[in-house]
């Protein structure tokens, strides 16, 4: 394994809805990842990607997104829960890649205006991660009542999320290191 190459862990903001409340949690987790030694990150807002909607799958790759996924050792997906599911455009974006994801780690940050913090959308997400070749971790972050977790400027109001994010990121980094070693060094028998 190349020790000189830092881990790459991009954060995907998975909604394009106007007035979206997921942008504050995405910015928060992005800053927490950026503060880790040996890790590089970027915030990918799916609203800024150039993906057509009259086709789907790998035929419509956005170079910025697919190159970020290729560089990635792990991804963090910040998703709201809309009607118990995740945004269709987030699935549309994720479906534009495949080989770029395989044997890489994934963590999910759920966001909801209600009390459950996206627990239902996270459960719905797990089989999709598996089919994409991503390896999910057992820590999530649940931003329930998100409108109370941040002030209008995006300042975090509940410091408990800092401790939770620390555990979540720590587990994701461990999985990312292990899977990088496997991708680099362990041949398929």
């Amino acid at each position, binding site marked *: 394994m190349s020790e000189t*190459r830092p881990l790459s862990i991009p954060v995907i903001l998975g909604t394009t809805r106007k007035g979206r409340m997921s942008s504050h949690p995405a910015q928060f987790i992005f800053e927490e990842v950026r503060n880790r030694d040996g890790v590089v990150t970027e915030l990918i807002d799916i609203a800024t990607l150039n993906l057509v909607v009259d086709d789907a799958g790998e035929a419509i790759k956005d170079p910025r997104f697919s190159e970020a996924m290729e560089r990635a050792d792990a991804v963090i997906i910040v998703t709201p829960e809309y009607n118990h599911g995740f945004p269709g455009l987030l699935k549309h974006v994720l479906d534009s890649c495949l080989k770029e994801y*395989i044997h890489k780690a994934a963590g999910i940050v759920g966001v909801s205006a209600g009390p459950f913090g996206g627990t239902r959308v996270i459960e719905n997400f797990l089989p999709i991660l598996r089919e994409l*070749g991503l390896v999910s971790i057992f820590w999530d972050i649940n931003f329930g009542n998100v409108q109370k977790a941040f002030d209008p400027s995006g300042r975090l109001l509940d410091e408990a999320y800092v401790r939770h994010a620390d555990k979540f990121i720590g587990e994701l980094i461990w999985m990312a290191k292990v899977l990088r070693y496997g991708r680099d060094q*362990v041949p*398929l028998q």
Partner: protein
Amino acid sequence: MHCPECGAPMNKHAEKPVTLTTYEIILAIYCCPNCGKVESEELNGM
């Protein structure tokens, strides 16, 4: 397979079944241990 970016030998670490619109294939997935480049190639279907 050798990395198209840096020339290092790539590690084949996965074979992923993929169902396309009309048929199923297996993708062999390779990783470059030097630069992280990802490559794939289609194998015969099962």
